[in-house]
């Protein structure tokens, strides 16, 4: 995380230097993954922000995480004033995200105050104001030296008090009071039918408005977040899926606002010498995305397993997402071509995470990947196959989600290798079923070549950005000894593979011996 924050700070600095962000509004990082990228640094510091959503959208969680992250990561104590849940309920809820609110309260970093508003208990007669609320808030703020405040949700006041004229005047005063005290505040509000919020709170809080939404499409529920408004700051305007994961909220931006991941010159050897030779002699670029596409049985998994093994042999960590084979199956199958994955699994250099693609929605898969990558910090991530993640058909959200995955892995400074299962028919056309090939830096295409009673495998490099690469189709042979990429033997312009190649080669060798190495010289060139 530190790394990505640093990167982000750089991005902002660069943006500021370029002058495409006027005078940036000072920001308070929310600490919520993704949200700070969408908002280019966090919520407006010293100002109230409005978080709007229907029931169950995650408003309270967002507000709570904002306070907790502030207290734990940014040294900004906070006050959480709630009108609907009790302090115990809130503590229990955030505990499910791995936050220990009680501890923070005990340590004097967070103050919580539950304000109960029950209409049936309150009789109104004559004039009043909400000074009591101000006093409570001020007391809580002073008790921990708070820099952040969350009010969840103020609208309970509207149902608790009948004099809305007084209430509105007091709310206006409250927001002014928060600003005067330089408090960065999150105010949650219910989504309204006609207005943005049910009671028109957006009228008072106009600096930053974030809308949360929860919808179910094809039985898979997705939460989405949109920054409706952010005064004085650029922000992502799209809807971004977000999740309430095991470690808090996670907003999934397509990418940060700009493409700014690292592009080192360093290479990652594939472990197959001939393939490295085809890739400018050194292999893939590190922190790049590699697509290995092919029809069934062309050896996609074998190639990526070899790449994984080679990385482990260099002492790097590899994370292998397997959506077709169980870890044990993978180990067994790869052993048959001389790749011992078990050894690296035992050393915890290789982790295989296998699951059924249909187990959960794509977004949930992404979260699992996010968490695993952040925890394990691998150098190489393998997704085998990426095409299986897309079983949900022609979901319009599919490509953006894959983009998120690809971008996330690049941001994590990982070399990612995706296999893609394609039908044999279109294996030779330069198109990937997923439409993600444009996001890939290197694309290896495997295909079956069948003729005269024998099926052989061919490998070619469709593209490899930024490096010279071979345009030749190679025959790809694997046996218990491992891999071999063999030059396809050209017989009067027709590529020969398999036994026919061997036969033709033998004939050519015989001829060459006769003709004094002329053919060999030509082949070398």
């Amino acid at each position, binding site marked *: 995380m530190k790394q990505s924050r640093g990167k982000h700070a750089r991005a902002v600095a660069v943006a500021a230097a370029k002058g495409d962000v006027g005078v940036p509004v000072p920001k308070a990082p929310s600490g919520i993954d993704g949200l700070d990228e969408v908002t280019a640094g966090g919520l407006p510091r010293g100002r109230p922000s409005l978080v709007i959503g229907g029931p169950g959208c995650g408003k309270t969680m967002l507000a709570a995480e904002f306070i907790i992250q502030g207290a734990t990561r940014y040294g900004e104590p906070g006050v959480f004033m709630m009108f609907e849940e009790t302090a115990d309920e809130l503590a229990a809820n955030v505990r499910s995200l791995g936050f220990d609110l009680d501890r923070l309260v005990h340590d004097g970093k967070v103050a919580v*105050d539950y*304000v*109960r*508003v029950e209409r049936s*208990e*309150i*009789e*109104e*007669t*004559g*004039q*009043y*104001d*909400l*000074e*009591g*609320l101000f*006093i*409570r808030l*001020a*007391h809580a703020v002073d008790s921990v030296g708070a820099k952040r405040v969350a009010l969840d949700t103020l609208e309970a*006041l509207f149902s*608790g*008090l009948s004099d809305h004229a007084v209430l509105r005047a007091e709310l206006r005063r409250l927001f002014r009071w928060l600003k005067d005290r330089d408090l960065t505040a999150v105010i949650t509000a219910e989504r309204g039918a006609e207005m943005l919020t049910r009671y028109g709170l957006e009228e008072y809080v106009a600096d930053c408005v974030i809308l949360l939404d929860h919808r179910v499409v094809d039985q898979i529920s997705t939460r989405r977040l949109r920054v409706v408004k952010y005064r004085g700051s650029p922000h992502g305007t799209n809807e971004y899926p977000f999740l309430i994961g095991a470690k808090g909220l996670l907003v999934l931006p397509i990418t940060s606002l700009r493409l700014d991941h690292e592009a080192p010159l360093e290479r990652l050897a594939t472990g197959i010498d001939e393939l490295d030779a085809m890739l400018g002699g050194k292999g893939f670029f590190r922190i790049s995305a590699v697509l290995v596409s092919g029809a069934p049985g062309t050896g996609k998994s074998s190639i990526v397993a070899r790449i994984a093994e080679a990385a482990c042999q260099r002492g790097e960590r590899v994370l292998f997402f397997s959506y077709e084979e169980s870890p044990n199956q993978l180990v067994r199958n790869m052993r048959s071509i001389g790749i011992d994955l078990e050894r690296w699994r035992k050393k915890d250099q290789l982790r295989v995470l296998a699951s059924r693609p249909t187990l959960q929605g794509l977004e949930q898969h992404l979260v699992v990947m996010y968490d695993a990558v952040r925890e394990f910090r691998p150098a190489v991530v393998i997704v085998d196959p990426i095409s299986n993640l897309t079983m949900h058909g022609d979901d319009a959200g599919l490509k953006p989600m894959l983009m998120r995955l690809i971008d996330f892995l690049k941001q994590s400074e990982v070399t990612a290798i995706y296999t893609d299962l394609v039908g044999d028919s279109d294996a030779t056309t330069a198109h990937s079923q997923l439409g993600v090939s444009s996001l890939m830096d290197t694309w290896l295409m495997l295909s079956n070549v069948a003729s005269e009673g024998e099926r052989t495998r061919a490998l070619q490099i469709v593209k490899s950005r930024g490096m010279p690469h071979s345009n030749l189709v190679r025959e790809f042979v694997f046996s218990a000894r491992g891999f071999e990429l063999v030059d396809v033997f050209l017989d009067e312009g027709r590529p020969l593979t398999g036994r026919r190649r061997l036969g033709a080669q033998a004939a050519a060798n015989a001829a060459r011996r006769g003709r004094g190495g002329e053919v060999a010289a030509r082949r070398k060139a």
Partner: protein
Amino acid sequence: MKERTADPAAKAARATPAEWQLRLYVAGATAKSVAALANLRRLCEEHLPGRYDIEVIDLLVNPKLAAGDQILAVPTLVRKFPEPIRKIIGDLSNEERVLVGLDIKQVAR
């Protein structure tokens, strides 16, 4: 900070707790607070002579106490006893409603 009323009847009753225990939360000596206390005293004298005890809590002096009785608005009058607890917010200018709110009417008449 607890400020007992100087009411002699209330003082006399202090040996045994008064039948009516009322607590008025205010925030400084604002017009509303002053009005509320005056209204309350007048009303108690009229309807509950010698049977009440008023405690005034100034939240500006003692902000901690606001959370205990869930005070939001000021002034707020809390009937601590007899139970159940009741709350009346405002300057108590509408006597009728205060009496209803405190459930005094039947008792007194």
